């Protein structure tokens, strides 16, 4: 790095770093992306690639989801095929009258916020998903729920950024930040110092450690999830199908194991089965209780899956913030440092909007959404410790 450094160093080559790098490059900034591992080696390569509007209550996160959906479809629309963008639609099902009523109430509020949500009667469910278990009490269909192949999305966004002049360096670990007083003026790495106009912390579940390098607190914690992958099947599950209880689980702050069924098929014919949530640090050991619950939940929704084999199980760590909102924007406690992360299990979908907002803010343009709800310093005022 001789002479002037890049305008922006992005720490983390996951989906958030990749989207941020691409939009910043497109806005004319010179960008360097660093990652201590390979690209998408953390959370981004270990999820299902959801772009969901259905699982969000009206509020800042839903606003970000709607913005992201627009960005995926419009700004990034010409590349959609590269990452297998698929508007498969989401079907939420309710097993009890109470949860069906709760779901209808949610869709009413979501529609008011601009979400396309269709209430589905119990008798209409088989038309959406012929293999669903009988006896469900109702549901809702969200045509706007989509999916991408997240690894391909990361790799191609980074390639587009590189084609636009960005530099992507994997296997480079940031070990410290360069400072001029309070100001962050670049990064120190195991391969030398890189001065930069701005530094973006997009380190996913490790974002807290990067913030610590600047002496600021960012309460991002890992929330572990498992996914089961079946053998390839003839078409069995058409949409992304999940239980109404999922919304409650996502919003919960409980550290203990929670599971709610999320079932969908992929282009290759396999069925992906989630979801589990537990806060156990970065413990990567296989949890048979989690797999048991995933399998039992999936079979309860789709009885035909009972005889189907699971070929693979994997886990990932969602970057979790105590208030379930991401962190996007400049850190006033360390000028020059920006954060983009803490999207929990929704990071793939929310990356498009996040990258756009970040590039707008970095170039001094007015962001398409107000960043106040996502302010990094919001946890400083006496929030309950997670």
């Amino acid at each position, binding site marked *: 790095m001789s002479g002037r450094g890049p305008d922006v160093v992005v720490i983390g080559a996951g989906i958030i770093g990749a989207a941020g790098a691409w939009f910043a490059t497109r806005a004319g900034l010179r960008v360097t992306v660093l990652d201590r591992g390979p690209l998408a080696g953390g959370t981004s*390569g270990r999820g299902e690639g959801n772009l969901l509007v259905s699982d969000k209550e009206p509020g800042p996160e839903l606003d970000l989801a709607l913005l992201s959906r627009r960005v995926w479809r419009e700004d990034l629309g010409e590349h959609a095929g590269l990452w297998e963008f698929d508007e498969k639609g989401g079907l939420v099902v309710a097993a*009890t009258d109470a949860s069906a009523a709760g779901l209808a109430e949610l869709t009413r509020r979501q529609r008011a916020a601009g979400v396309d949500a269709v209430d589905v009667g119990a008798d209409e469910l088989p038309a959406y998903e012929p293999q669903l278990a009988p006896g469900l009490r109702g549901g809702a269909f969200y045509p706007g729920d989509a999916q991408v192949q997240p690894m391909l999305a990361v790799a*191609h966004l980074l390639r587009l950024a590189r084609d636009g002049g960005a530099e992507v360096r994997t296997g480079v670990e940031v070990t410290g930040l360069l400072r001029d007083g309070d100001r962050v003026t670049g990064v120190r790495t195991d391969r030398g110092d890189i001065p930069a106009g701005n530094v973006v912390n997009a380190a996913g579940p490790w974002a807290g450690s990067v913030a610590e390098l600047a002496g600021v607190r960012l309460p991002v914690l890992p929330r572990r999830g498992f996914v089961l992958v079946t053998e390839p099947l003839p078409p069995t599950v058409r949409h992304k199908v999940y239980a109404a209880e999922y919304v409650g689980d996502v919003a919960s702050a409980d550290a203990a194991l929670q599971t709610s069924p999320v079932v969908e098929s992929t282009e290759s014919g396999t069925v992906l089965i989630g979801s589990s949530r537990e806060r156990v640090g970065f413990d990567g050991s296989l949890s048979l209780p989690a797999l048991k619950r995933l399998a039992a939940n999936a079979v309860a929704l789709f009885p035909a899956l009972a005889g189907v084999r699971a070929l693979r199980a994997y886990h990932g760590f969602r970057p979790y913030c105590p208030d379930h909102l991401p962190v996007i924007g400049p850190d006033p406690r360390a000028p020059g440092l920006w954060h983009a992360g803490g999207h929990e299990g929704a990071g793939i979908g929310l990356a498009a909007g996040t990258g756009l907002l970040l590039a707008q803010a970095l170039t001094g343009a007015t962001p398409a959404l107000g960043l106040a709800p996502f302010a990094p310093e919001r946890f400083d005022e006496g929030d309950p410790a997670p």
Partner: protein
Amino acid sequence: MNERPFDLAVVGAGPAGLAAAVAAGESGLRVALVDAGPRPGGQFWRHAEGADGAGHHDWETFASLRSRLRRLTAGTRVRHLPLHQVWAVDRAGDAPFTLRLTPAFDGATDEVTPAVRARAIALCTGGYDRQLPVPGWTLPGVMAAGGVQALLKGSGTVAGRRAVVAGTGPFLLPVATGLAAAGAEVAAVVEAARPADWLRRPLGAAAVPGKAVEGAGYAAALLRHRVPYLTRSAVTRVHGGDEVTAVTVERVDGSGRVVPGRTRRLAVDLVAFGWGFTPSLELVVALGAGTERGADGSLVATVDRARRATVPGVYVAGEATGVGGAAKAVAEGELAGLTAAVDAGRPAPTKRGRRLAARIARAERFAEAMHAAHPVPERWTEWLTEATVLCRCEEVTVGAVERAREDLGAGDPRTAKLLARPGMGWCQGRVCGFATAALLAAGAGRAVTAEDLRALGKRPLAAPVTLGELAALPEPPDPPDFPDPDTA
């Protein structure tokens, strides 16, 4: 599940597992012997019901181990669980190791035992054919040499009428002579290395005299059947429409690079490729035990001289610690069984242990010499074309993986797998893992590392298991105190 935990669970009833179970059982341990096969013997002593050992090597050793096993299973010392596969080893139960089992295949057995609890575990999981793709290798009529051998041994089936046996290493010889003896015409044995270097090395054959005699026997058999033995040669292309009709054989130098102008074509309907073996390490890796690159370039379990893995209570014997043949595996298995007994507080048979350790050390020197003389040719990836299928489960071509590397920055196997899907299908990379690692390393101008192989060898589900079986897992022993969202 209420019976008390076994002292030792042995996984695999091949040469190593049989010897381990018998040694541990005769030392007074209560042993569970879990195996996917219907009868003990593993791949090496695979046999049809009631077979008398014709065509098998060292059948006397097997017959002796089998009758000792029968005595032990007749009592309550050893419980033999055939037709079961271990899909996970659970460390969270009330015994140190709970093996979660599934039938070896659909309807394999009516008496399914879903779990076995044990205080210690001996992994004798063997290996499977290491495969190197070449253009045309997915045509019907192309088989792994081990598969051809298994058909011969298991049911006496001859997989073709006119065969070529190609690859490297001494295992090509029994496959070729086995085919010839069963009536197939063997057009050639195509060996990438120089002829039987391993027999000339003083540390090799001299240390294991039996092996030299064995090798000479095969050579005589090849002569008798008039089978040409082509060295420094490789089958670099397989031809055919619906099935194999011919192969291209080319001369190669010591690195595997093709020597131009020395090409020949052989008409065959069967190609048996033998490029050595890949140890089955799913359970070793899942248990967090250490692994390293072995003498033949495959990932192997790290063990001490007494066969202890790096995780307490875990022993490993046989091909999983390095491919070296059945005699080595039997000695290692016996030593693993004895070590498990000693660690469980039984008196130590020091003399026997020392003798086994010495025998294993000799066999290891022999195996190392053999692997050194028969390496996977360094430049074999140059035989591939863009269109060659690398992963047959997911139909991923060499070109797709190279594009993921060059255009998208997939420099390591895990990233390549997630971007281009090699290793994502039925076999979970068991067939294409080694080749994928080799292709990426070659593209980056570096050697394959243990880390590359570990990334592809990690399979938290060691075998496919149905969702119904998963759902039927017992509740965790100590349910945490929180409301269950699924009972709503």
